[in-house]
């Protein structure tokens, strides 16, 4: 796969990642393919947005690339390479993994989560998370934390509060400060603004953007909210049922969506002055325990063809910065002149000799 933004340095390269929930209970085994064959790259200084409806596997994907999974979720295949690591993140031992956390790789959690220990003051959380990774004497560390909080326009007095004494928005700001205080190279933000009301959401977004610019780190930003993506993401990947279906610079996705699912997603956004009715997709998102064959979108797709039922489309770069996984978008002309489907897929399935 060629880097979508080849000129920039690649910070994260994910290739053919598959992560399944494997469950055995009372003698029966079930598999839920939450992340199925995803490849993407994130460049330096870039905010990569990840969109898709709930349970499309976004959160599972970022948990997996953060090496923060526990059974029953298991990595079944693929690789995850960060530029600051000399090997796949799943080949690190526990000590090595915890030494890169926060220093190089940090995580802004979902806004709805209670990520701060309820019986510890905020200051102690900063000590637990950041002190071992900063390698500073305690006094200097404390000054650094206060300076960081001030840069993010937070009062140092929050350090003496217990989490339950802070409002939801405030807690989320503290979590962002906590995730960025070590100036990490790479930040994973998983729905950081979802649980917040719109006003707070805006200022928290600005805070994230601000922190990211100031540190100069790369980021994967997950949310189902396309409006938020329009505001913050440089590039956008669309997920559907555990797969990436489209990826392009954010403006391009909004201007020229190619995948029928993305088209629908964009078309359903409200626009000022446009009162035409929005058409809803028929059907429901598929069960990932028993996903549809071929392209997982085909049961709801207006353009579905026979081939869509049989073969899963691969992500193909339609133009250098725009990748789409759709048979309708990527018809490849075979030497025989027959326009059917992507050549490489045909070969793999043995349909094209």
């Amino acid at each position, binding site marked *: 796969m060629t880097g979508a933004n080849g000129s920039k340095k690649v910070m994260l390269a994910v290739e053919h990642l598959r992560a399944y929930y494997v469950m055995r209970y009372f003698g029966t085994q079930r598999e839920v393919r939450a992340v199925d064959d995803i490849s993407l790259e994130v460049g330096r200084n870039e905010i990569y947005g990840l969109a898709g409806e709930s349970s499309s596997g976004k959160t599972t994907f970022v948990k997996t690339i953060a090496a923060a999974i526990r059974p029953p979720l298991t990595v079944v295949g693929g690789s995850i390479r960060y530029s600051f690591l000399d090997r796949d993140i799943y080949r690190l031992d526990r000590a090595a993994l915890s030494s890169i956390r926060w220093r190089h790789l940090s*995580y802004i959690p979902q806004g709805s989560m209670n990520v701060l*220990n309820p*019986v510890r003051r905020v200051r*102690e959380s900063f000590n*637990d*998370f950041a002190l*071992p*990774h900063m390698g500073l004497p305690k006094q200097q560390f404390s000054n650094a934390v206060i300076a960081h909080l001030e840069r993010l326009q937070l009062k140092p007095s929050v350090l003496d509060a217990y989490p339950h004494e802070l409002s939801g928005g405030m807690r989320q700001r503290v979590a962002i400060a906590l995730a960025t205080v070590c100036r990490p190279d790479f930040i994973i933000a998983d729905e950081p603004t979802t649980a917040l009301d719109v006003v707070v959401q805006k200022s928290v977004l600005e805070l994230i953007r601000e922190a990211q610019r100031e540190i100069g780190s790369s980021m994967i930003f997950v949310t189902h909210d396309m409006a938020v993506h329009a505001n913050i993401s440089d590039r956008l990947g669309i997920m559907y049922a555990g797969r990436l279906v489209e990826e392009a610079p954010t403006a391009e996705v909004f201007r020229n969506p190619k995948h029928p699912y993305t088209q629908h997603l964009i078309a359903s956004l409200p626009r000022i002055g446009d009162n035409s009715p929005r058409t809803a997709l028929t059907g429901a998102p598929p069960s990932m325990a028993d996903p549809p064959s071929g392209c997982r979108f085909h049961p709801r797709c207006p353009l579905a063809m026979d081939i869509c039922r049989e073969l899963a489309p691969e992500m193909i770069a339609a133009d250098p910065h725009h990748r789409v996984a759709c048979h309708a978008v990527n018809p490849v002309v075979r030497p025989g002149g027959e326009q059917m489907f992507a050549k490489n897929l045909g070969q793999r399935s043995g349909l094209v000799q």
Partner: protein
Amino acid sequence: MRTYALYFVSRLAQFVLVVFIGINVAYLITHLTPIDPVEQAISSVTMFGQSSPEMVEVMRKALRELYGLEGSAPQQYVTFWKRLATGDFGPSLSAFPTPVSTLIWQALPWTVGLLVCSTLIAWMVGNFLGGLAGYYRRNILLKALGIVAMSLQPIPYYIVAFILLIVFGFLWPVLPISGGAEMNIDRQGFAFAASIIQHSILPALSLVLVGMGAWFIGMRSLVSNIVTEDYVTYAELGGVDRRRILFSYVMRNALSPQVTGLALSLGAIFNGAIITEVVFGYPGLGTLLVRAVNAGDYSLVLGITSVSIIAVAAAILVIDIIYPLLDPRVVQG
């Protein structure tokens, strides 16, 4: 500070309520049952010898007054509470004329000592090991310990104490199985203290064994729920030191419900302690209670029951007061 005062007042109210309801249950039992304790005492006295009807009448009147059973029902009720408030349970019939309160005061330190020590040991050790077992779920040793705890936990205190009595009384007699201390020892000094400890080992062991099993299992299941909490997952994600996660994040948060659990189960633990005392003839409230029942000593039985209720309620109040130190959230709620 104001919120703490509010919290304190609510806990104090709970204390008053426990004492009030508990004592009323005791009062109802003594007054609603068809048996008249005065007649019972008289019949047990007159059983052994001739007494003139006048003598019996004098005795009946004296006992009625002694037991606070004179006058109308409301009057009796008021007398009852008045006596309780002043700590006056009247003289003991079986150890006449020693006041019941004196007997209780002599027995109470033994019970409190045994109860506090064994409860603290059981609670701390059980929670610590249970916490480890919940966090390191694959550890074989901790798994085995879990099975031991599971098989001890449902067995009542009496049976465990009884088995220890059999083992250390008949099969392997290395420990004293009766009494609180050696009789013919100077009541001060090291030898006496050593004897007290020696005598308390078996009663305390039975309490610790049963109690520890319960705390172990409770803590283990609490911890295995807490490890999936957001703040633990996030701390793991943040590369926080593993031991710090175990103690300050996991166990620390599991401790709050276990303290509540301790307060809630104090009544049951108290039951266990006095039962164990009976098995080992330990000179506390339990042994005194059984002796009082067998001697038909109404004031003493009622006195011990009342003191038990007050003591348990007071112990819970103490736990409630220090609870906010452990979990800053309780004061708010």
